[in-house]
């Protein structure tokens, strides 16, 4: 019997999801089509080892059996979602994948996109500038002998657009002219090969400026490097006469500690541009949420996009902000299911790699709704995968864990 398969690889801290869909060819014959959603991990600590990609890419190649992917989806421009294929292409010998179609989030189009949406550009520039200042600040801290905590390193690595850009460039070329920059309500006809399975984009909106929010400016007090090769330095003006020394030092500390709020805001902005799409096949409805955070979920709710699903790729590695509050969750995973089919969620995560991820209350919230929740890192070692089969007749879901 036919079944749709969702395979979630353990790539450390990141996503790599292969979907295999039995579909119909033009002649009516059954044909297996493959969608790959993101491949990447965050470049800090255990969760970011490049070595994890080799077995993963090898496994995907074997599954494709020499054929290109039917569709590659890049949800958003974060390293833990974009790095893998670029890495594989630069191996010696290269491990490459090609795609007949590629969907990249709308704003990944770059200059042309930002020309159409000047407010988004203005806000994105503020984020980029914020990121530059934080990089400089962390370098200055490092130069002063202070250890940078791992979660900060992860956040920083993930949001350093200079590193991400090369990976996104690679993905822009993956399907050549058949690359589409995706947003809700964009034209999908001819942009994927599916005849039977139905794909629907829930997010992002075409104008992503709202996701970017208003970036709070940073007051880190860092001087530029004196010369090439030297580090930036922290600027601490001496206490002016008459000013309480303790209060002044506290103020300087508070002004600097804003960098972490800034990093979280930068991270959130990109997460919220995630492509969120549903895939409907023979009565099953699956939702792939990228790293969408609350602002995106609220927008989806406002646009009346939300529908009950049987499968959820848990957003943002199980963070508290990746899964919406109970009211929105009720729309996609109602406490009283709409049918008798199984419901399941998959979360690709790794504890201690990223600030406050995963959040055990969030996982519990999903379980409280009667879902079985598979945490990929608990099921298999890096390089391995968890595969979930959705039988065509709507019978029980089957799960398999396969080590590399």
């Amino acid at each position: 019997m036919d079944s749709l398969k969702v395979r979630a690889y353990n790539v450390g801290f990141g996503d790599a999801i292969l979907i295999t869909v039995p579909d119909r060819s033009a002649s009516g014959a059954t044909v297996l089509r493959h969608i790959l959603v993101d491949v990447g991990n965050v470049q800090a600590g255990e969760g970011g080892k490049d070595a994890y990609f080799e077995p993963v890419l090898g496994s995907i190649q074997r599954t494709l059996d020499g054929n290109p992917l039917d569709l590659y989806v890049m949800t958003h421009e974060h390293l833990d979602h974009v790095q893998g294929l670029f890495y594989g292409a630069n191996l010696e010998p290269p491990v490459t994948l090609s795609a007949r179609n590629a969907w990249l989030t709308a704003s990944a189009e770059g200059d042309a996109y930002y020309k159409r949406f000047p407010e988004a550009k203005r806000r994105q520039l503020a984020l980029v500038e914020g990121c530059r200042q934080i990089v400089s600040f962390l370098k200055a801290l490092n130069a002063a002998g202070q250890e940078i905590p791992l979660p900060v390193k992860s956040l920083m690595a993930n949001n350093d657009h200079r590193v991400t850009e090369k990976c996104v460039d690679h993905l822009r070329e993956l399907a050549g002219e058949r690359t589409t920059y995706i947003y809700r309500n964009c034209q999908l006809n001819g942009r994927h090969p599916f005849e039977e399975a139905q794909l629907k984009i829930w997010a992002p909106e075409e104008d992503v400026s709202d996701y970017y929010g208003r970036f709070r400016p940073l007051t880190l007090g860092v001087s530029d490097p004196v010369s090439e090769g030297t580090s930036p330095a922290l600027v601490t003006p001496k206490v002016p006469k008459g000013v309480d020394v303790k209060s002044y030092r506290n103020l300087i500390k508070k002004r600097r500690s804003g960098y972490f709020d800034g990093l979280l805001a930068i991270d959130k902005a990109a997460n919220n541009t995630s492509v969120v799409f549903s895939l409907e096949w023979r009565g099953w409805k699956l939702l792939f949420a990228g790293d969408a955070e609350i602002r995106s979920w609220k927008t989806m709710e406002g646009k009346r996009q939300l529908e009950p699903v049987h499968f959820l790729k848990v957003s943002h590695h199980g963070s508290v902000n990746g899964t919406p509050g109970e009211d929105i969750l009720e729309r996609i995973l109602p406490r009283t299911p709409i049918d008798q089919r199984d419901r399941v969620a998959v979360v690709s995560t790794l504890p201690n790699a990223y600030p406050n991820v995963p959040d055990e209350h969030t996982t519990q919230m999903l379980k409280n709704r009667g879902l079985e929740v598979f945490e990929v890192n608990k099921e298999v070692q890096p390089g391995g995968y968890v595969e979930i089969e959705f039988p065509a007749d709507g019978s029980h879901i089957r799960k398999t864990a396969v080590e590399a």
Partner: protein
Amino acid sequence: MAKNTTPGTSNPKVEIPLMIKDPTVTAGGRGVDQFHCTLESEYWDGPVSNRVAVLDFDDQTGELRPGAKFIPAPPKRALGRFDVPRRTDPKYPKRKDYVTDTDPFIQTSVFGTVLRTIKLFEHENVLGRPVRWAFDGPQLLVIPRAADWANAFYHRDSRSLQFFFFQAEAAPKDRVYTCLSRDIVAHETAHAILDGIAPDLYNALTPQSLALHEAVADLTAVMMAAESGWLVTEVLEKTRGAIDDSTIFSSIAPQFGAALGRKYLRQLGNRKTLRDVSGDEPHELSEVLSGALFAVLVRMHNEHRERFAQEDKWKKFGDRKDPVTGEPGDPWFSCSGAAFTAACFRLRNSIFQALEYLPPGEVSFADYGRAILAVDEGGNLNPPFVREWICSEFLQRSIVDKPDELVTKVNFMYEPLDNVDIDDLVNDENVARKFAEDNREFLLIPPGVQFQVRPRQMLRKTYYDANRKEVPAEECLFKVSWPHIESNELDKSISKPREILRGTTLVIDLINKKVRAVLTSDRSDYQCHERDRMFKRLMENGLLARDDRALAPDGSTLDSVVQLDTKSGNLRVLGTACLLHIVE
């Protein structure tokens, strides 16, 4: 009216220039007022004084710009000053105006406006005491040009007021400095002062508690506008003595609002009711309360005009002709400035003193209404009809359903007070605790609940009463608080109830040992329902962070979230006041 005295008059007198409203408003051809300050005992460059320090950081380099230089009064002269450049206006050759776009002026104006706001509260007819900060430090730090952003806020953790600058949307070449807006500076300073008076509001979950902060801050801005004789004269000239139709006093931060494509940030001249606003957004909610009290101010102004115009001092203006137009004089118009100043003075005495009477913990608009009426009636600060106007406004705006919800018994004997030594009650924790324990029912402390007795406060001030008499007053504030547990139906992932703080303020008149008033937190289901809504909104918007998740790696509190403490037994929110930035 009482003389404009403040504590510490042996202090040096220092001349400080400050903006009349903001750079878009001038009065009588001037944009700048002068404040002769006697509040502080010492001054340094910056400006810096014992309680306020301006730190003008360069947002690009992190360096401090040189502060305005302090020039003490020369020998045999009384007035010190700061070195602020001035120039002669060709139109008015005898006048030397401050150059407002210079660093020293920007630094000095914000300093002066902060101190002027402090003076408003410290007046002997208001608090009658120096303001206290809610943080552990002697100085409120003022950052006049923190960074490029359309915002300003008070930040307890950094003990500072943060003012930002931004480019106006309509005129991108114009840079708007929020620190040059008298409204905005007064507003943010009021947050800091109120935080010292009612520190529990900083962690309140009740939307009206946060909205109260906003309303008081906005009303402070109005009262500060009334402190400028130039501005009052100019506006009343234009409106022929009426404030009903003028937005200059009722609109908050017009330059800021205009730069963002609006007329102003908020409008106190409104008829909004609690039924009109969406519910839990503090800024929107605040307009109901500030609108109610501004409406009372308008009525008080009209009443003062009517009364003043009948007094000989003003009546005689009716017999004179205008020297320019030849039109007959108008006593109603002539007295309107004095009437406005008097109305503001009387209203502020009641509404700012009432802040001290608020019960500890969460408070509602109705709590504040009860406190205003208690202080007003208890001290006979205004005629009864003013209290009726206040009641009427609170009713019309659906803050209360019935007038008796605002009634508080004042100035009555309470026998147990006869049997306690007030000095012991103030200084001895055991005596204070026993008094609270023995009088649980009177103080409305629920049976069996653990309570905390707050440090007692002694107030020595002067009531300026309805008969225009100054009456010395000595009061003791005896405050107790206790945790109140509410069910938490919203966050099903944590099966813990929610905890808030409630309390009672007992005001003891020390001159006759009577109870001036007893005020206990609002216990209505409506407020509980509103807290549910607030909690839900915070949760659904990702603004609640549990425990350590509200902390940066260095252990400092994140500014972008409200902390949800789940470890101390029940759920408690901390730092909700960080939502009160001027814009989000």
